[in-house]
């Protein structure tokens, strides 16, 4: 049971991020800036929480930062059609630097910051819930609500259809009078809100502190889940749960005296294994069906 609870805690940030990423993937943008957005959001969550007081202020700051980040990503990759890898990798590094410079400015430290005045996100306990579901963060429940709502929108609304259409056939969408560019921005904005929530969860619930590099590849694991699902929400969630379970197992193994560094390798190894397994086919034989995941910008590849 402890493992299940640990997995839920691990899955939550991945779920937020991967859901947002799955939607941008549907519109034809593989959002590889997730790692940086998550780190920036977790820093701004602490900053807002500390300066303004209250976890809600922290979450709002995190979302604002992540939105700004995603809008910049959109400006460069959607509007200007710059190379998605160049922009994404640079923005990931930029987020690190901005967090570090602002951290030294506000908190006069480099490395990590924690303070008793930071209010953690509340945990939810309800009498009718089984014991192992009690005491989980409000963000966990928010993630589940988001998941249900997004699945619903994805399956049975016009909006969900338009998102997919922006990625699969943008001319058809444009001729129906809907701007594919706008759909991409909408997906990026939704992604911004969700990654903001993920970052806030990391720094004000999972840990109540900001540590340098605290996103620790989670953004990338979420990207891997998105690639694994290739825009399909169900498979993305499967990937997320798998990777979250691996992270939790890795930490569990440490408490059984396993070398912590080797145990922490587990989720990364699993990601490689899953991606290899998914694409395992004889060389030279194309697999029919869905198109390959977006490797660059929509339409205008450079």
């Amino acid at each position, binding site marked *: 049971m402890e493992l299940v609870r640990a997995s839920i805690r691990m899955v939550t940030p991945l779920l937020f991020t991967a859901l947002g990423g799955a939607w941008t993937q549907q519109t034809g943008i593989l959002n590889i800036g997730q790692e940086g957005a998550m780190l920036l959001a977790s820093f701004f969550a602490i900053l807002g929480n500390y300066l303004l007081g209250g976890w809600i202020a922290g979450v709002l700051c995190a979302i604002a930062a992540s939105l700004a980040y995603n809008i910049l990503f959109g400006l*460069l990759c959607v509007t200007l059609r*710059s190379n998605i890898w160049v922009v994404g990798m*640079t923005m990931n590094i930029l987020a690190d*630097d901005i967090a570090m410079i602002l951290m030294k400015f506000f908190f006069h430290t480099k490395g990590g910051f924690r303070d008793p005045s930071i209010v953690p996100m509340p945990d939810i306990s309800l009498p009718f819930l089984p014991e192992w579901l009690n005491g989980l963060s409000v963000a966990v429940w928010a993630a589940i609500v988001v998941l249900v709502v997004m699945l619903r929108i994805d399956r049975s609304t016009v909006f969900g259809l338009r998102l997919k259409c922006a990625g699969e056939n943008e001319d058809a969408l444009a001729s129906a009078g809907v701007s594919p560019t706008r759909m991409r921005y909408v997906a990026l904005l939704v992604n911004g809100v969700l990654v903001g929530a993920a970052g806030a969860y990391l720094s004000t619930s999972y840990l109540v502190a900001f540590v340098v590099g605290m996103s620790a590849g989670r953004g990338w694991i979420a990207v891997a889940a998105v690639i694994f699902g290739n825009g399909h929400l169900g498979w993305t969630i499967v990937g997320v749960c798998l990777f979250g379970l691996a992270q939790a197992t890795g930490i569990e193994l440490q408490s059984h005296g396993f070398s912590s560094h080797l145990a922490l390798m587990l989720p990364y190894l699993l990601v490689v294994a899953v991606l290899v397994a998914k694409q395992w086919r004889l060389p030279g034989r194309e697999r029919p069906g869905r198109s390959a995941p977006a490797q660059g910008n929509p339409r205008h590849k450079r």
Partner: protein
Amino acid sequence: MNRSVFREQRDLLIVILSFGISLFLGALFILLYGADPIDAYAGMLRGALGDRDALIATLARAVPIVLSTMSIAVAFNGGIWNIGAEGQLFLGAFAAAWVGIDLKFLPGYVLILLGLAAAIGVAMFWAWIPARLSLDRGINIVVLTIMLNSIAILFTTWLATGPYAGARANAGTTDRIVESMRLPHFGAFGTLNWGVFAAVAAVAAVAVMMTATVAGYEWRCCRLNPIFARYGGIDVPARKMQAMLLSGSLAGLAGALLVMGDHYRFMTTISAGYTWTGMILAMMVANAPAAGIAAAIVYAVMSSGALEMELATGVPTELVSLIVCCAVLFVTAGIAVADRLANRIRED
């Protein structure tokens, strides 16, 4: 011909302008810290080039940065996204340290050659895995190499804190390598060592390959238009694999030189994010080798002086990386805008 010259000059102008704007943005952050930007930048230059010792330290710092930049540039120029140079550097560094610890009975020059070979071999192998998987199976190489980075770094951390932990336990460092394997330093101070010759030779060789050989031409074709490249008879996967292996070997060489020349041991903090720096530098100059080397040296000057700036004004050294990141974004945006304007003019 004229057009391409025009484009080169135009792009160079964009790079320089972007860098200038980024320096200005950096100045805003310096103002945030209540320091005078001109003082801070001057302090940066003084700290990097002020006297002979500072100059030597700056040159020493440039070695891994130039190697990393070329490592990334050769891969990206070939159209294969090697984000895994950091992991390749770590494994290469550990391999060199292992040679210096476990094979110390061998004579010095054998050790040095063996250390270089082991580092380069291991790093190439670590680059080969994702390249093979990506080229044969179409697995996204960026995610793959990022995951392999984490695996390599955790693995070497385990080695350096577990089986190969040095006398100072829990410090994350191995024992020192045998004395005969250490590369001699220039002068009494600083860390500039004979490794710089190996670095210059490797970088020059790769730069020549990229600019003046058939291989370089075919790499560019693979990146710019793989379908055309295939039509023209280029074995695209083989060329990409070559670029990836070269990239890995440069990263491994950087790791080996850090161990054999600078630290004399493997440590978990051996890379100050060198390959990430190299990546943004390579992207800033669109993988052009000569410009990449120049950018890497400018970066080495800035980051070497940044320590002095941080001491004097409190502005963190990360400012340098921030400036370069902003420059990359400006360059990509600038070139995109310029291309569009050019297209519009032609259509009119």
